[in-house]
């Protein structure tokens, strides 16, 4: 196949050639970045929480009136008793928050009391001795809290528990390569000794501002008594989530009606929590996907349209070539090669454009650098798209009979 005649033909259609190449380049640049965003969002929303998600639900109970701290603690303990007896409930723990909740108590951790810069940020989870079992966490070193270690505090007290359990991620940051059990960390109110290490426990926020300490959590052996209300994290027996959710709320109201459990977010199964936390990420991924598909379709249609015109315009020339001995295959290959040339030019420019677009987004939208794979995938995809789109008009061209050469238009 000779490329020279194709090039000289293209030179006569500079504007059209340029426009198709441009369109391919722009499409490639946008689709590459869109795919990359989709990948990032999906990777983000598949990050594990480290807990037994299918069997967990969360109750948010707000107190009516202005009970004092001691009263709140008594009510929480009564609620825990009641919840434990609900059919289908395996275990329950009170907490101030849970993974993917979105907000809660984040704090800084230091290794020495007089240190100026923090050693790490961390999510603070208040818990009792049932926390680890309820959430289904894996204790990889040390021990769980003992029942006699569980205290209670309100917001007035300083955060200085004698013992804490931390996550592996925090250990890796604070004591890389060492055994953390028995070591001391400093929270805002004072020191705490690490007695246990759990494998994985995600932070309560998955937003970008919290990404620095995504899996660095500190579990505090205290019930946090806020007059506003608290969370109960409940683990249901496998398969009894729905019935346990209904029964639990009913039991709580029977126990103490002076509370508010919101209709829309008072009781959430963990799958609801997850879909709420990642709503915008999922939406963005879907949107990017739709835009990419439509964009590819528009570009394919554009190629079909323009090539059809070129075929129509060159019927006579095609006829002449056929009359001079060119086979159908030759004609077909001519148009396919022509498209391949244009697409390659477009793809080459598109790759540069995609990189430029990505670099710009890195500065504006806290994106990561585009990996080479996406560029390669994108370029191959558009070349194939071009070949696919040009096939129909090229086949039509190959069916132009040689007799066309003798006809006038």
């Amino acid at each position, binding site marked *: 196949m000779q490329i020279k005649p194709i090039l000289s033909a293209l030179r006569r259609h500079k504007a059209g050639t340029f426009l198709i190449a441009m369109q391919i380049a722009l499409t490639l640049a946008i689709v590459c970045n869109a795919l990359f965003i989709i990948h990032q969002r999906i990777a983000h929303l598949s990050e594990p929480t480290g807990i037994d998600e299918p069997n967990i639900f969360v109750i948010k109970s707000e107190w009516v009136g202005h009970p004092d701290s001691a009263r709140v603690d008594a009510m929480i303990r009564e609620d825990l008793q009641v919840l434990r007896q609900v059919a289908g409930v395996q275990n329950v723990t009170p907490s101030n928050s849970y993974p993917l909740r979105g907000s809660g108590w984040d704090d800084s951790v230091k290794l020495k009391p007089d240190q100026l810069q923090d050693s790490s940020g961390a999510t603070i989870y208040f818990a009792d001795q049932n926390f680890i079992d309820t959430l289904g966490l894996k204790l990889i070193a040390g021990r769980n809290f003992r029942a006699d270690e569980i205290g209670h505090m*309100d917001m007035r007290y300083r955060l200085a528990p004698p013992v804490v359990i931390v996550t592996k991620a925090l250990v890796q940051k604070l004591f890389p390569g060492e055994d953390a059990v028995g070591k001391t960390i400093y929270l*805002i109110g004072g020191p705490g000794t690490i007695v246990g290490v759990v494998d994985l426990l995600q932070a309560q926020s998955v937003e970008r501002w919290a990404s620095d300490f995504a899996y660095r959590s500190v579990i505090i052996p205290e019930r946090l008594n806020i007059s506003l209300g608290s969370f109960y994290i409940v683990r249901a027996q496998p398969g009894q989530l729905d019935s346990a959710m209904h029964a639990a709320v009913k039991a709580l109201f029977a126990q103490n009606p002076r509370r508010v459990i919101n209709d829309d977010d008072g009781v959430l199964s963990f799958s609801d929590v997850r879909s709420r936390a990642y709503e915008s990420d999922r939406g963005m991924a879907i949107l990017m996907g739709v835009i990419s598909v439509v964009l590819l379709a528009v570009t394919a*249609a*554009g190629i079909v349209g323009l090539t059809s015109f070129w075929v129509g315009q060159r019927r006579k020339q095609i006829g002449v070539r056929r009359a001079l001995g060119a086979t159908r295959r030759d004609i077909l290959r001519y148009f396919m090669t022509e498209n391949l040339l244009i697409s390659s030019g477009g793809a080459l420019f598109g790759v540069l454009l995609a990189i430029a677009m990505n670099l710009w987004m890195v500065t504006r939208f806290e994106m990561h650098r585009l990996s080479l794979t996406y560029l390669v995938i994108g370029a191959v995809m558009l070349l194939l798209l071009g070949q696919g789109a040009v096939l129909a008009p090229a086949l039509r061209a190959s069916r132009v009979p040689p007799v066309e050469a003798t006809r006038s238009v």
Partner: protein
Amino acid sequence: MFGYYLDLALRSLRRNKMLTALMVLAIALGIGASMTTLTVLHVLSGDPLPGTSTTLFYPQVDPRDMDGYEEGKRPPEQVSWPDGQNLLQAKRADRQALMTGGSVAVQPAQANIDPFFSDARYTTSDFFPMFKVPFLYGRPWSAQEDEAKARVVVITRTLNEKLFAGKNSVGQTLRIKDAALQVIGVLDDWRPTPRFYDLNTGSNYGTTEDVFVPLSTSRDAHFAHDGSTDCWGSGGGDDEHAETAPCVWLQYWVQLDSPAKVAAYREYLVHYSQEQKALGRFQRPPNVDLPNLMEWMDINKVVPGDVRLQTWLALGFLLVCLVNTVGLMLAKFLRRAGELGVRRALGASKREVFMQLLVESGVIGLAGGSFGLLLAFVGLWLVRKQPSSYAALAHMSVGMLMFTFLLAVGTTLLAGLLPAWRACQITPALQLKSQ
């Protein structure tokens, strides 16, 4: 002549229906996507208080200790109780208000309504005149009532409908957390977008709080504070001792009516910081800022990054659709070289042929624009189905509607320029000869 061109354009478009449909569809998709995202962006980046926002400022001082000090870092986003009170009492601005958010349990007098939690704003008297808050009934509270910790409350129209069936409830009593507050005012519909005065509530595009109580009263009656509390040193986020804790948890806004006053106020903030440092309360060198309302929105990146990203993406999409249309139109116009050659030979000037082709691309633009507008309405409807707090705001305004048409027709005419220009360069003689 325009009528004739229009007739020619329609005939030509009808001749190749597939291609016309393709061009119209491409434009429509591009316009639809762009207009949907632009409308959302326009709504979200709008001025919450048009006409007033340029005189509203958000003073910032830095009361933190040297822990984690870095030169050039911004001062904290809120103020502490002592600083808020000092700045408020100094009355150096035309108007000033100190505020924070909260959540209160409302106990309705009616037996048929269960107690419920409602978001509340605890603030000082200038809040209402400074932010031009409209009143349906009654009045805002006064500075004297602030001072007296008066048991008064202003509620929104929504809450008034819920509790008092929309009647004038001024003088009625509202029980909040076992305290009896007298309703002195009911707000008319007021939804500043974004809800600029407190960006710590997590829903910057939500409705306002339903209950407004004097800040002094809220402290006196132990109403729970809700929102961001940032502490340093040995501070703890305890509500009861928030006045003395080394924490920032209040928002402070001032109104400054002239540039001279703005400069003077900035000076004042620096002096204040120096004075507090001399007193030993502040430790850092004076670190102040005085952004105006819209600057403060920018600093806090109020418009979600995803929305901006979507807008850019949609504009890129529109660009591809336009390039697509330019290519198709170019091919189409050049293909009609013969016909155009005849017209030229019969006396039509280049200019007239050019006009004829532009009318044709204008028709495509108009059709694409109309269809795109429909798509934009569908798009906005989809956005409203989303659970985000700004979903309900995604409506098209008359201005955006006009803009859509201008954008559609304008861009297609622009897209038609090159093909039309190329097509009218045809030498009539050559075309006639080859026939």
